[in-house]
């Protein structure tokens, strides 16, 4: 039972067949470019720019009403005009009037997402104005009559061959356009003539500087330079959120924007314009007159600042961050799902990728955001990629929560309300509540194992699960253990003399009920390194409900965890976590769910298991207490959220120190991402994403032991390669010596 407005399986399958190859290739190129460029400038330096950029955006949005006033003053003092448009219609009306006043019949445009958002082209065309997109990517989209598939590269889903076919059909050129060079030369000529004949040039603005009434434009092709200088009239259309105080604040963005977008240190062209500019006007009717035709026409400049929902977003504590976005596309490029399907699935009316959820929810409404919001799995790989540190997964979670709450309660809810112990309003889709309350299922499953496993995997049960819950029957379900990790730990008689540390091993839902082996291994490793280990009675972290957008339930869980861990933390126990997605809750999401002191306490006191072992060894624990690797090969996939926390290298370092030969995957995510890969309509996408990982390990899988730090990664690798993927801690298990 899938919600009808979400991307359906059929559509995803079609995109996987048609657009996926190009999108993968191009987004991964951008993604790798970004990593390289950041390494080039130095991570610490890059981090400083991010911090500064974030501060500037926070401050600018805070001061927005002032900055708008100041912009109006300065632009007008320079001789230009500012129009603050309430919505799309208002903005379009104003631009249409400017065009009509000039009796202009041709307009050229450079790339501007904001004009896409307001459908400016359609509005002008309705007045019989000839409108040309001059950015080549936008030009391709215009000719193909499609929507952009990516914020930065609107046509990156199209191959060179497809563009050739499109142009040859549309323009019937005498010479074939069978190379990128020829296509570019053709477009340069074709659009060059149109720019020369245009009466009005429309650009966007990446930044507006209030103090001087200036705009900044970031481009590589040079078309924005032409659109802003060749026609006498320049109209710049920008969202109100683009305003920063002055040129002094532009610097970190100049450092960040191209590196984040395409991996360039700077764009080809960074235009800083304070129009009307001194470049003379040109008169093409007097083509042989010197001095550019000796025109006596004056330059005109109009700045259209578009609200269209932004002032309301500014008042919205959860969506506000969206306004800091500089539209670099890094969140799309770093997203495994996006790399597979692109913006035609993972996007709304205008915007694409993870942040599109914020933009579309704020501008169009929740119904548009709902169409693609589920494609964000919360893997968090975009978090460190974002140059202005927007918590993009959180925005997706909040919007999902709002979508859930907006649903009418139906029959399913009446049924499920009595069964699941969550805090959600009726209306939250049944499947979301099932996954969100996975802990309950696990508890019951474990208590009744192995019967529960047999029943759950029976054909009848799987069919029912597929039709009622949309759980794909091709997926293996986790098998529950009859004896939980906690029960096992309690039944042991183990004592460590003079422990170096006392550890509270967090029994996450998977380790406690299903994958107890990795929990047992962790306990034996910690004891061998001189720690005393207890497995406290603590419930789920709230990760499962949070990933379904059930924030109230997640908050409840977080509070309970904090309560249960408090006495251990007070007694100076270290909390050690095996499942990375739960540690990520403690370190990241609890910031949103718990009071700051409580969150900090948990954050400071908790460690990922391999991070902790690394620390023990660094502080003198005896490495010989652990089994040596003997040069054996290991293929290691680090969990997405673990990598976002910067904890991938500890595992590599330990395994190498023990003498293993480690091959690490470099994909952003395994594609399983918690419950995502279980959902019927996302099965194909999940497998498509997983195949990239599988391809990296395929050759190695015969001679290397495959290890993965997350439960979902293990399940995904098991189904893609062969069963038997283990957690790295199991390789350290002295019990297996």
């Amino acid at each position, binding site marked *: 039972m899938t919600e009808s407005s979400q991307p359906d399986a059929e559509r995803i399958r079609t995109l996987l067949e048609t657009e996926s190859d190009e999108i993968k290739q191009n987004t991964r190129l951008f993604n790798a470019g970004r990593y390289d460029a950041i390494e080039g400038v130095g991570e610490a330096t890059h981090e400083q720019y991010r911090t500064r950029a974030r501060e500037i955006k926070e401050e600018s949005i805070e001061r927005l009403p002032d900055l708008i006033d100041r912009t109006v003053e300065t632009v007008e003092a320079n001789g230009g005009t500012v129009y603050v448009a309430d919505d799309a219609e208002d903005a379009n009306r104003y631009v249409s009037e400017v065009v009509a006043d000039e009796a202009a019949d041709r307009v050229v445009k450079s790339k501007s997402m904001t004009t896409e958002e307001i459908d400016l082209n359609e509005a002008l065309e309705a007045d019989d104005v000839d409108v040309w997109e001059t950015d080549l990517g936008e030009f391709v989209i215009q000719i193909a009559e499609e929507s952009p598939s990516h914020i930065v590269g609107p046509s990156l889903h199209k191959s*060179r061959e497809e563009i050739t076919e499109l142009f040859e059909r549309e323009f019937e050129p005498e010479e074939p356009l069978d190379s990128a060079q020829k296509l570019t030369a053709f477009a340069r000529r074709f659009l060059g003539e149109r720019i020369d004949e245009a009466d009005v040039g429309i650009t966007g603005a990446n930044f507006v500087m209030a103090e001087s009434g200036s705009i900044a434009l970031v481009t590589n092709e*040079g078309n924005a330079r032409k659109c802003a200088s060749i026609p006498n009239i320049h109209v710049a259309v920008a969202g109100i959120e683009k305003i920063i105080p002055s*040129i002094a604040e532009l610097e970190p963005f100049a450092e960040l924007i191209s590196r984040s977008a395409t991996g360039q240190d700077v764009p080809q062209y960074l235009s*800083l314009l304070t129009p009307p500019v*001194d470049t003379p006007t*040109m008169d093409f009717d007097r083509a042989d*007159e010197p001095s*550019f035709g000796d025109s006596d026409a004056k330059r005109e400049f109009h700045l259209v600042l578009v609200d269209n929902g932004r002032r309301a977003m500014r008042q919205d504590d959860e969506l506000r961050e969206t306004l800091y976005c500089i539209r670099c596309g890094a969140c799309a490029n770093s997203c495994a799902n996006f790399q597979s399907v692109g913006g035609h699935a993972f996007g709304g009316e205008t915007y694409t990728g993870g942040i599109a959820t914020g933009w579309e929810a704020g501008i169009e409404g929740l119904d548009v955001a709902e169409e693609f919001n589920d494609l964000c799995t919360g893997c968090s790989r975009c978090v460190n990629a974002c140059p202005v540190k927007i918590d993009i997964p959180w925005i997706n979670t909040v919007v999902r929560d709002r979508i859930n709450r907006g649903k009418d309660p139906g029959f399913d809810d009446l049924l499920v309300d009595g069964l699941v112990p969550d805090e959600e309003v009726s209306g939250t889709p049944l499947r979301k509540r099932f996954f969100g309350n996975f802990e309950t299922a696990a508890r019951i499953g474990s208590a009744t194992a192995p019967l529960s496993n047999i029943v759950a995997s029976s054909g009848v049960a799987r069919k029912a699960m597929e039709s009622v819950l949309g759980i794909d029957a091709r997926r293996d379900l986790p098998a529950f253990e009859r004896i939980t990790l906690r029960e096992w730990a309690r039944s042991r008689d183990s004592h460590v003399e003079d422990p170096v540390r006392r550890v509270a091993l967090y029994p996450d839902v998977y380790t406690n009920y299903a994958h107890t082996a990795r929990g047992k291994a962790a306990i034996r490793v910690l004891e061998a390194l001189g720690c005393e280990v207890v497995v406290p009675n603590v419930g789920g972290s709230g990760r499962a409900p949070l990933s379904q957008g059930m924030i109230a339930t997640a908050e409840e869980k977080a509070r309970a965890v904090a309560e249960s861990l408090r006495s251990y933390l007070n007694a100076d126990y270290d909390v050690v976590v095996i499942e990375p997605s739960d540690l990520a809750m403690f370190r990241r999401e609890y910031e949103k769910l718990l009071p700051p002191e409580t969150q900090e306490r948990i954050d400071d006191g908790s460690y990922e298991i391999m991070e902790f072992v690394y620390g023990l060894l660094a502080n003198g624990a005896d490495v010989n207490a652990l089994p040596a690797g003997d040069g054996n090969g290991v293929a290691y996939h680090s969990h997405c959220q673990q990598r976002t926390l910067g904890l991938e290298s500890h595992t590599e370092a330990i395994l190498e120190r023990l003498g293993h030969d480690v091959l690490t995957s470099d994909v952003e995510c395994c594609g399983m991402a918690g419950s995502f890969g279980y959902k019927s309509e996302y099965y194909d996408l999940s497998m498509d994403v997983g195949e990239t990982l599988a391809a990296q390990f395929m050759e190695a899988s015969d001679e290397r032991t495959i290890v993965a730090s997350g439960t979902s990664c293990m399940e995904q690798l098991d189904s893609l390669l062969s069963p038997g993927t283990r957690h790295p801690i199991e390789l350290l298990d002295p019990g297996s010596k």
Partner: protein
Amino acid sequence: MSAGSVQEFQQSLTRLDTASTVVSPNEFETALADVIETPAVGAELPFEDLSLEELPVALEPSPSQLREAVMGVTGSRMGIASLGTVAVESRSAGDEFVALYPEFHVVVVRESDLRSDLSDAFGWLQSEFEAGRRSLILATGPSSTGDMGALVQGVHGPERVHIVIVRDDD
């Protein structure tokens, strides 16, 4: 503000597929004449001691000359050593058109105007803004696009760029 070195500037230009020549002030005209391909257009240089007056370059060209030119020559009052960036100012001499229309853009920059990196360049930009000169393009390499299925140089702007660096003095 710290000065940038000619050597680093040239290294950056090499990475950008951009040619460069270093000349002394009195070699300037001969050296530039060697680089020029005609028909050429130009915007008079923003330097007191360097001029395009005597060179085969049409200044303040007509629209037809602009469209027919294969080369455009402009001056830049700033260069960024670490990036190979130059400035194209929006001046009444028409630098922007001269720099945009022809496929080959030649830029004259003085050694003393080189800044070490983007941060230094921003120091300069701020003082320019304070002085009321507030419209310019920071240009780095030739215009390019990846939108046609492969990286191509020479889209709406120049396909080739050549930088002539004029030494401070002999």
